[in-house]
């Protein structure tokens, strides 16, 4: 039973990690990264590392995507301004 759970969460991690690489738009990539963080948190919990799972949940699926989204917004805003000047 535990082996099946481990296998499922490993596959989930592999699938979402591949998706995170395949998606090209950074804003969408941030969202896929949040899903990957969630999948990793599940995997860590299944292999009995709930402490690491909690860290992964807090950092990987909340903080990192948020920082990426904010950076994307900043870069896009600057691009818009330069476009307006020309």
């Amino acid at each position, binding site marked *: 039973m*535990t082996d099946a759970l481990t296998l499922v969460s490993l596959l989930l991690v592999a699938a979402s990690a591949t998706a995170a690489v395949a998606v090209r738009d950074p804003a969408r990539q941030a969202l896929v990264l949040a899903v990957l963080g969630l999948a990793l948190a599940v995997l860590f919990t299944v292999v009995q590392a*709930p*402490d690491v*799972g*909690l*860290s992964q*949940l*807090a*950092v990987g699926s*909340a*903080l990192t995507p*948020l*920082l990426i989204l*904010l*950076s994307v*917004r*900043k870069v896009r*805003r*600057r691009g818009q*301004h*330069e476009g307006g*000047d020309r």
Partner: protein
Amino acid sequence: MSRRMRMWVLATGGLAVAVLLVAGYARLPHFGGAVHPYGERAVSAALARHTANVISSVNFDLRAFDTLGEETILFGAVLGTVVLLRQTRDEREVPPAPAEVAPPVRRYALIMLPVALLTGLYVVAHGQLSPGGGFQGGVVVATALHLLYIGADYRALEKIRPVGTYEVGDAAGEAAYLVLGVAGLLGGSAFLANTLLPYGTFNTLASGGTVPLLNAAVGMEVACAVVVLLARFLDQAVEIEEDNGSAMGKES
């Protein structure tokens, strides 16, 4: 270097890493085996010092020095962000306009804010007893505050988040860890040694000697660090704009 040459260098490096990895993995104990030499020693050390969460015992007692390094990495990273993302001379601050928020989003964010905040504080406070601790809880506390940005707008968030205070809190958390370490050196036996305080009753909030104190110091440091980090990013994304005059001057 030609393209062909670069591919050869890449292939050689990749092959070497692959060989090292396979050689390393081949000698690992099998997945889910019954023999855990490190685990058994860590568990008995944690139980001897009345720390219910063995991971916290490893982080804040057995390897407290290691955690000091990790905490300092975060501190240094935030310091670097503060320096890099400051408002420079050719940038100006544009106050953000009040934003329209859909009522369900506002309701959800304002209900979740206290819940998430309390959850974060609980995770910090119970680090020595249950999964979690200063790092995990600190991040939850800091991100919980930012639900106000989703539920209201940036100006509301800025009112409850004086960045200067959180910068001081960040430094105070880092300093508290160091002071506790030096206290262990002066009053006990060694830097960060857990011999200073009584170990207390097993599985209560005050158990584990210096573990809850170090845990609280990390919680404070991480919560303040993440708030400052997000504040710098938010300032750049929402408020700070490049000054048009000098931007045009640079282009011409």
